[in-house]
């Protein structure tokens, strides 16, 4: 079966689409989730390389700026980066916190909400939020919509790119490339339920090893994400290269894309209609015969006065 067909029946949300996508056939589909256990990450970047290899991405060869991070940030050709932090904990012990940063595949995706191009961003029944470059117009709204600053616009084709959670692999029964490559089992993949269970197990393990604040990062602000973290210090996500405390779609974006859209559009239509109805009831505004008359009278009076003055001059009257 061709991917398109698989998809068409499994898209539960489409960007810039007012009517609901087919939802009925989601019964048998388990949402998927990628778990990233930061406590097991050695920052080897296997995931980063595997991602580029699978997705045929070759970024520029950059520079070293005095840290292990490279590439330094997400780009249209780098859909995930490892972010390294040297953190001294309360006991004064050094911890090397290494976080794999990529699209979180929000259950309530800000990019999708912001996108004006129908079908350029879709959310599959399994939870993957995918960019469909063919329909992307490169307006950059997805960037403003994303609470995690993930999408990147290409200077080459002006289109927006980000991690697809290897939707092509997942739809063919494989795990994402990054997950498969991970040497330490820091990245795991499976159904949402299984991953949430595993996350709990891993959290308990960390608590047994003295990380009392260990926990799962699965932010409610975006109805949870299909990429979740296990953090040693879930109480302060900020120390992991500024992982947002409690991310949600910016109120500004909601204000712009939420109710405003339909209401304003309606208002515009309404305005036109009102005008039409007003014309039909009150009728046009036009000057009448009286104005014409008045003007003629004015002119007549004027001519009279001028004639009189001429006469007076001729007769030399004072």
């Amino acid at each position, binding site marked *: 079966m061709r991917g398109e067909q698989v998809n068409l029946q499994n898209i539960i949300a489409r960007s810039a689409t007012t009517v609901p996508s087919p939802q009925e056939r989601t019964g048998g589909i388990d949402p998927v989730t990628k778990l990233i256990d930061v406590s097991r*990450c*050695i*920052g080897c*970047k296997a995931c980063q*390389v595997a991602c580029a290899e699978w997705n045929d991405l070759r970024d520029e060869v950059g520079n070293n*700026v005095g840290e292990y991070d*490279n590439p330094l940030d997400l780009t249209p050709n780098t859909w995930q980066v490892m972010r390294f932090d*040297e953190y001294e904990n309360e006991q004064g012990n050094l911890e090397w916190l290494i976080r794999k940063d990529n699209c979180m595949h929000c259950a309530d995706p800000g990019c999708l909400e912001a996108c004006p191009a129908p079908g350029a961003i879709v959310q599959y029944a399994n939870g993957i939020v995918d960019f469909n470059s063919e329909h992307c117009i490169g307006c950059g709204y997805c960037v403003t919509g994303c609470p995690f600053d993930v999408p990147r616009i290409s200077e080459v084709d002006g289109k927006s790119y980000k991690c697809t959670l290897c939707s092509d692999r997942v739809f063919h029964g494989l795990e994402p490339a990054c997950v498969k490559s991970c040497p*330490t089992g820091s990245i795991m993949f499976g159904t949402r339920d299984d991953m949430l269970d595993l996350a709990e197990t891993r959290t308990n393990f960390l608590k047994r090893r003295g990380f009392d604040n260990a926990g799962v990062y699965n932010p409610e602000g975006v109805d949870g994400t299909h990429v979740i973290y296990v953090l040693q210090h879930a109480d302060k996500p900020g120390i992991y290269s500024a992982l947002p405390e409690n991310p949600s779609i910016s109120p500004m974006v909601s204000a712009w894309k939420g109710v405003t859209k339909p209401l304003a559009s309606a208002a515009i239509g309404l305005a036109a209609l009102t005008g039409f109805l007003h014309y039909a009831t009150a009728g046009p505004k036009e000057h009448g015969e009286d104005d014409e008359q008045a003007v003629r009278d004015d002119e007549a009076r004027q001519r009279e006065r001028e004639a009189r003055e001429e006469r007076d001059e001729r007769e030399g009257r004072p």
Partner: protein
Amino acid sequence: MTNHWVDIRNADLIIGMGGNPAEAHPVGFRWVMEAREHNDARLVVVDPRFTRTAAVADYFAEIRTGTDIAFLGGLIHYLIESGRFQRDYVLAYTDASLLVADEFGFEDGLFNGYDADNGEYEMEGWQYQYDEDGHALRDETLQHPRCVFQLMRQHYSRYTLDVVSSVCGTPREKIQHVWDMAAETAAPDKTMTFLYALGWTQHSIGSQIIRTAAIVQLLLGNMGMRGGGVNALRGHSNIQGLTDLGLLSDQLPGYLTLPDDDEQDYEDFILERARPPLVPEEISYWRYYERFHVSLMKAWYGDAATEANNWCYDWLPKMGEDLYDILHTFERMHQGEINGYLCQGFNPLAAFPHKAKVTEALSRLKFLVVIDPLRTETAEFWMNHGEYHDVDPAAIDTEVFRLPTTSFAEEDGTIVNSSRWLQWFWQAAPPPGEAKPDTAILAGIFLRMQRLYQEEGGAFPDPILNLHWPYRRPEEPSPEELAREYNGWALEDVFDEDRNLVVRAGEQIEDFGFLRADGSTACGCWIFAGCWTEGGNQMARRDNSDPYGSGQTLGWAWSWPANRRILYNRASARPDGTPWAANKAVVWWDGERWVGNDVPDFPEDSPPEATQGPFIMNQTGRGQLFARDRMKEGPFPEHYEPFETPIASNPLHPDNPLAKHNPGARIFPQDRENLGTFEEFPHAATSYRLTEHFHYWTMHNRLNAIAQPEKFVEIGESLAQELGIAKGDRVRVSSKRGHIDAVAVVTKRIRPLQVAGKTVHQVGIPLHWGFLGETKKAHLTNTLTPSVGDANTQTPEYKSFLVRVDKL
């Protein structure tokens, strides 16, 4: 590895020391993570830097580079004095109870018999006390002052917590904590494993560091156990295989060795190697040495090898030196004593110490042949690469041939991983352009030489003219043919002691037990015997089932020897044949024979009552706490300072300059002149690899170049502050031998150490990046490293040297 990758998951304590497994072997490291998660194991890292391994470790202790013997010697001291060692194991399975010759002694950092003039030991006294049958005397109470145990106890009594702390620069409490964790594994149901790599081998005392670890493991009863062992993670994909096949100056396949000049007589040559047991009834498996040697000569010289000519004994070159190792070779090359050199998939200009010397040496060659899939710095050593490699081609008369060969993806064959697994792989595509497999290239050269000798004659042509060459396509021997050859086959019918026919003429042999010394068998590498039997290619087996849940997967590929996965596994059972602990059981005596979840490393039918020792390759049948005359710098490991040390003297022997550095190490005059002092080069430097790169290969790969694009050095925050260096600044790192420029990574992960009452800063220097490839051009790290090696292996001291750091 004595054990194997998956077995690490059975460990209770993993010590990452002298290695950085997460960085260098991430996938093998998976089994450490599994041990932590499923076996509640702890991971301890002892390293100069807080490494990627440390990032996921349960405990980290910093240490000054090159002081591991002190750290582990102290552990030995602690285990013995606190009685926290596995006494039954030590008594039964080690040479602790054997008595040592009276001449043996140790004074002020030197063992007896040191000849200061030529820097060598006379090792005569380094022996046991023997009775008239040549058997060692024993004291089962371990109380005799001359027994190995007591001598060892005395030797390490100097390694107190304070001494160790001042030598290593590791805080006392951290040392004690690691020692305690290790001591816990003295329990029979607990095992600890050492994961090490070049961080132990690349020191002037490398071999002895590893010996120290082995002693610790014997004391704790962790050898031959599940989740135990001393595990060399090893470097290249087939470095294990090349070692097994003996591609080293003094070796022959299967750890057989070449004769030296004095071994003019074949019988003596064999007797010296076919070692008799030193303890009654022990197996001492090397006693069968001649079977392996003769079978090898039959494989190489076929019918030309006869009893009459001692199986072509004189066709083997004899060693005029201990080793013709690379340091020795490049010294001679530098002297102009070498005319030709072949580099097969090897990049000495980048990989050998003191690059300037290597460049000069190569420039004095008449011809250089580089066989490689990639461009290498070595092949272009004559080419001017600006500031990174500034030479004048016109002044270099070396004729350089560059021959393109296949990559792994374009050939069939096997490689041996560090678990000793021979794994067969298949060709996926043809090589690019005109590239040929190495076998075709070597055959191409050899067959032409052979023809020239046929036509013109020349110096000692016999071995060349008679080299057995039975391959279907002589110009390109196939991997299958070669593999069948090193497995071995019967030239004539082979019979056992009772005259039963066990192998028919022409059949592949099943294991080395069938080899004969009478010329009726041929075998290219006796330890590989069994890899390609009449049953076919065992190395291509892909049954990954693990019926015992022990992680042995006996049906996957083929492991030497005899498909055995854990060496010395007899030691996993008590002397009475029952496992030390159910959760650690590997093999056990079932009343008639040895059985278990691995191939027993022991005669299958030797009952416990026979009390044969588990270390069957040793003459004592026991683990050697006392190395006798096998180690150049002494039977017990002793700490000596690196040849470039940041402190003035060896804190253990401050008053004996002879005992400052390894007394057994060899160093050439010019190289000694090129050693720096801490006055001029104050910082201790260590070179290493990163996980994003593999040596000087992956800098040619776009994907890896992206992941780690530019050369950098790691500098601790306090040193950086001292030198006014900020993250991202360009710095110049200089040693007595040259300088490199790189970006500074300023980090909390390298802390200053208090060593012998002095603050020592360490500088980390990754070695990838050169002046070729996709990454940013850079100076080669080995511009800085000193040309001095380990006394036994001559492995260069890449891990400990002195540098100065300047901001650019």
